[in-house]
């Protein structure tokens, strides 16, 4: 099953993917395409807690630095150091270039405004 059938997306172009007890968070293909060459990724420390909407990471393309926001509240349990070491992997393979894994700390209500991939695509294609 493709990742696009399982992810939920934010209007700010992050995706959330449920994987058992944890969730991974990454950037959508649209975000990666819009950013162009990604050259720097700054990830948070494991153990830090963020609220929904907080900036938890920064992704920089040649042109600009972009803040990445939490789709839901959570505590960082793992960061993808491979992406920090090779930021271009986001351009080459967005589906496998997750940024962090989190433990959800908020309520399910926080998911209400997340879009499934098809609706998200419609939103960004407008």
């Amino acid at each position, binding site marked *: 099953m493709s990742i696009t059938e399982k992810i939920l997306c934010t209007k700010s172009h992050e995706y959330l993917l449920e994987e058992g007890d944890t969730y991974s968070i990454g950037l959508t293909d649209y975000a990666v395409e819009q950013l*162009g*060459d990604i*050259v*720097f990724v*700054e990830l948070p420390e494991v153990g830090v807690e963020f609220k929904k909407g907080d900036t938890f990471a*920064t992704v*920089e393309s*040649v*042109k*600009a*630095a972009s803040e990445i926001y939490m789709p839901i509240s959570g505590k960082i349990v793992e960061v993808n150091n491979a992406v920090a070491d090779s930021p271009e992997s986001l351009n080459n393979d967005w589906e496998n270039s997750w940024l962090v894994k989190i433990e959800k700390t908020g309520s399910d209500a926080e998911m209400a405004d997340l879009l499934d991939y098809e609706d998200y695509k419609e939103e960004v294609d407008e």
Partner: protein
Amino acid sequence: METYLHDKHVALGAKMVDFAGWSMPVQYTSIIEEHKNVRENIGLFDVSHMGEVFVVGKDSMEFLNKLVPQDISKLTDGKAVYCQLPNRNGGLIDDLIIYKLKEQTYLVICNASRVDEDINWMALNQRGYNVNLDNQSHNLSLIAVQGPKAIDLMHKLGYTQNQDSFTIIESKLLNIPMYISRTGYTGEDGFELLVINEYAEYLWDTLLEKGKEFNAMPIGLGARDTLRLEAALPLYGNDLDENTTPVEAGLSWSIPKDKFQDYNGKKVIEEQLENGGRKKLIGLKMLDKSIARHEYEVYFKGEKVGHVTSGGVSPMLNANIAMAYVKNSKEICTDCVVQVMIREKLHDAQVVKRPFVQKRNRVHKEK
């Protein structure tokens, strides 16, 4: 506004952005790929958004000499000079290339974002000079052909002249009348071709088609910016503004110390040539993977000493580089380490000489 090549850019799949009111291509494929192609092969740039003002008349030399610190009286026919346009306090209204086409006829190339200001300023200074200002910006298209193989593509198109760097000729290429200048904004050898709008599409298509064998690629404003940063060429609005003098901007090399005629800002600029400015431009190389960008603060020994004006990646150095204004202190010198504040953390950067990347292909007369 759109250039005459707008539809070509869209058809080539360019990502279009607004730049100084113009819809311009920022990238076609990837900024890094485009950047490297200009350093290794050829890049084609639509820079038709830039301003072209013809200054013509009996007093045109004296008039331009009033406007810029450079000595226009020394220009011979067909020569170009990099100039600045200071206000009366020495602050920069724009930076320019001035070409002497022939006696009493000059071409001034202005930044797209500053054409109106430049024209207004020229008009304000026009009193007493027998000179005509002819703004042709909307009638002309400018295509830059840049890179070590630019000369090969020009030869392929039938160009046979023997032209030095910073010269211009009026000629025909592909049977199109045009000005051909050996200038650019990339730190590479190259040409800029100035034609009336109606010829732009045919010229562009032919350059792309004939350029294939030299790996010519269209290049967007994104790579234009990273290329000029590696070459440490200033960008108006980032590195230059009305509160910055040419001395402070590190452009003293371009200013003759013996220019007799008075010019706007001369008092301040001459005083600063002697004693230095209030601030100075430095080159920085980041010592970690972080990227310094426009307006980030610069610290030295715990004290805020200035800010970054332009910063980003250097695809050729595989490092991140920046230019910054810092207070004019002898302590902040080449090889010393300063810090750049990036997202509330200080990151070390080394002060390095500019340009960051040396031109490999110096122009010399072809035999």
